[in-house]
């Protein structure tokens, strides 16, 4: 509390002294999470508040820790694949993708073109579904309830598509080392095409509700700012850093799959705030839709049926190490595998985007209000399964 000097009547007459001398103001520590409606899982943020203003933020994680990295050391390479689904459980395909890329790099497997197209298609559908879930919950956090249900309506269609290809809707485990589990089923391409055609129209519904909504703008513009440089220093990646004007997308800088064969644009915004990150993800959804269309074009014509490369029955990579990364919906997802030549990884390290992104939260909410924390958590789109691993 600042000093406020004034005259006070005391026993010695009128004396000038600090009026706030006997006033005790304490900051209040508030526990936000792990059971809080909008921390998206079991994130625990402890806030020091002065009124509603935030003086200090501390993040506590680990409530969902399952020891995946150690777990990997006692599983064979194919056995660990389903575990990766449980990292970012709302974008399982992308998690699979990162892992199989690392193993393939280790073993030097060349994946057939058809498999690459299928993988890219799945990864992009995953991106749309992940961003839809993000938009739904982010809007709900800020109070726009209807967007939530509109987004789930479209996400449902994507999950139906996933169910068609592999029977599972969430933890899909569709990818295999060297390709994918099976070829696309009959009727999938038509159904997927249908989705890609109507999605842009449906996405207009979300824009109608919030894109130019004054309240939405007031809640998101100039909120939770982070500059591109600060973001890079803190390891921010994915759509969150592209909202700060940094042109960094693994799909462009280190193309994998068929990202160098399809035409699409990287979404970048200069706003550095919650609104910019919102715009980036909105654009990404539409771009993903375009990529899906092009993948479908190829898959329609292609009749090679080669959905998996010839890989040995027992996966036994040579001694060595490999790092492969993909642009997961949340950011850069990397798998670093050290192999000792046996059927199990010697060490496996996961570079989880949500974990790194979360670390920039305290920076974003410095001096902000309680309501801004919610907007900030929403805007960096964390999934706790990935943070805690």
């Amino acid at each position, binding site marked *: 509390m600042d000093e406020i000097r004034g005259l006070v009547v005391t026993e010695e007459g009128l004396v000038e002294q600090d009026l706030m001398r006997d006033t005790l103001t304490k900051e*209040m520590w508030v526990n936000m999470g792990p059971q*809080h409606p909008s921390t998206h899982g079991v994130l625990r943020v402890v806030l020091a508040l002065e009124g*509603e203003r935030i003086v200090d933020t501390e993040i506590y994680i680990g409530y969902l820790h399952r020891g995946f990295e150690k777990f990997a050391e006692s599983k064979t390479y194919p056995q660990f694949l389903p575990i990766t689904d449980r990292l970012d459980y709302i974008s399982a395909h992308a998690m699979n993708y990162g892992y199989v890329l690392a193993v393939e790099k280790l073993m030097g497997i060349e994946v057939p073109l058809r498999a690459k197209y299928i993988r890219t298609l799945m990864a992009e559908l995953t991106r749309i579904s992940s961003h839809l879930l993000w938009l739904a919950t982010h809007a709900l956090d*800020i109070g726009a309830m209807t967007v939530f249900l509109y987004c789930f309506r479209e996400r449902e269609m994507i999950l139906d598509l996933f169910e068609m290809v592999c029977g599972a809707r969430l933890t899909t485990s569709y990818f295999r080392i060297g390709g994918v589990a099976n070829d696309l089923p009959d009727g999938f391409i038509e159904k997927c095409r249908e989705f890609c055609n109507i999605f842009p129209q449906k996405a207009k519904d979300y824009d109608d509700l919030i894109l130019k*909504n004054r*309240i939405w703008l007031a*809640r998101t513009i100039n909120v939770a700012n982070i500059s591109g440089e600060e973001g890079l220093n803190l390891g921010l990646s994915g759509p969150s850093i592209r909202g700060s004007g940094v042109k960094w997308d693994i799909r462009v800088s280190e193309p994998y799959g068929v990202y160098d064969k399809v035409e699409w644009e990287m979404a970048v915004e200069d706003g550095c705030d919650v609104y910019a990150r919102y715009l980036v993800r909105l654009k990404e959804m539409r771009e993903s839709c375009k990529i899906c269309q092009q993948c479908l074009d190829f898959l329609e014509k292609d009749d090679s049926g080669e959905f998996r490369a010839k890989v040995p029955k027992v996966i036994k990579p040579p001694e060595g190490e490999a790092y492969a990364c993909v642009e997961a919906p949340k950011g850069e997802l990397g798998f670093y595998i050290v192999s000792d030549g046996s059927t199990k990884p010697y060490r496996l390290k996961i570079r989880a985007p949500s974990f790194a992104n979360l670390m920039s939260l305290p920076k974003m909410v410095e001096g902000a209000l309680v309501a801004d924390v919610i907007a900030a958590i929403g805007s960096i789109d964390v999934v706790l399964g990935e943070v805690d691993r």
Partner: protein
Amino acid sequence: MLLEIGIALLKIIVVFALALLTVAYLTYIERKVIGHMQVRMGPMRVGPHGLLQPIADGLKLFMKEDIVPYEAYRFTFYFAPILTLVTALILFAVIPFDKHFAITRLNIGVMYILSIASVGVLGILLAGWASGSKYPILGGLRSAAQMLSYEIFLGFSIIGALMISGSLDLVKIVESQHVWNIVYQPVAFVIYIIAALGEINRVPFDLPEAETELVAGFHTEYSGMKFAYFFLAEYANMIIVCSMATILFLGGWRGPVLPGFVWFLIKLFALIYFFIWVRATFPRYRYDQFMKIGWKIMLPIVLANIVVTGVVMMMVQGG
């Protein structure tokens, strides 16, 4: 004498029974309307089209365990929901649903409503403070600031209508509206609706109970019937502010052909529908932005509105 008391009692019973029933079914209507706006069905399981849902909800809340937090101030903790509900319900006493149908006719009906409504705010304040827990305190603080300031705009926004009607008697106000007041006072009507949304804590101004920020705000620690009291009070207040808008700006029960109370209900439910619609559409304002809108934008506008109304009235009557 006895007959008069009997009639008065009958009126009270009818109005309160209807009010409570409407309040209970308002939750159903809200869930249904929002449900259909959000491509889902709303309650469907209890009774045909979920019609018995409010009763099931009531029973469930009634049978819940009554939890009082260890740190709570016991008496105040029990007292706050009762205060909130009672103040919300006794407001129905002066609402004229028809020319001859109101429990009582006060010549200062508007004053009565404004003053009782501000006592209701106390209930929320006390609830936040008495819970002895952090999120309710934040919710209570927010509602203190919000409801106190928004009552000012609410009060100012109806002054224009009162000047034209020249009375504080709700019946006279309606009778004086040969043309609905909304025609003369469009700005005041809009401000009234915004202030009313703030006053009864509804989206986009539902800050005291912003569930994604403050868990449930002032009623975080409340469960069972005590929670139900807050819930009922909230919806009762919604009916009250909509009735006030109907009486002050939309000509109350006046309308052709149909009987008076039907017109009243039509107007009332049109407004309530609007409130629900707003909830389905808008995000939530931030606390500081909300206060800024109130003091920096709405207050000057309502004051200007009063001045303009006065000047125009002087010119019309003088000429």
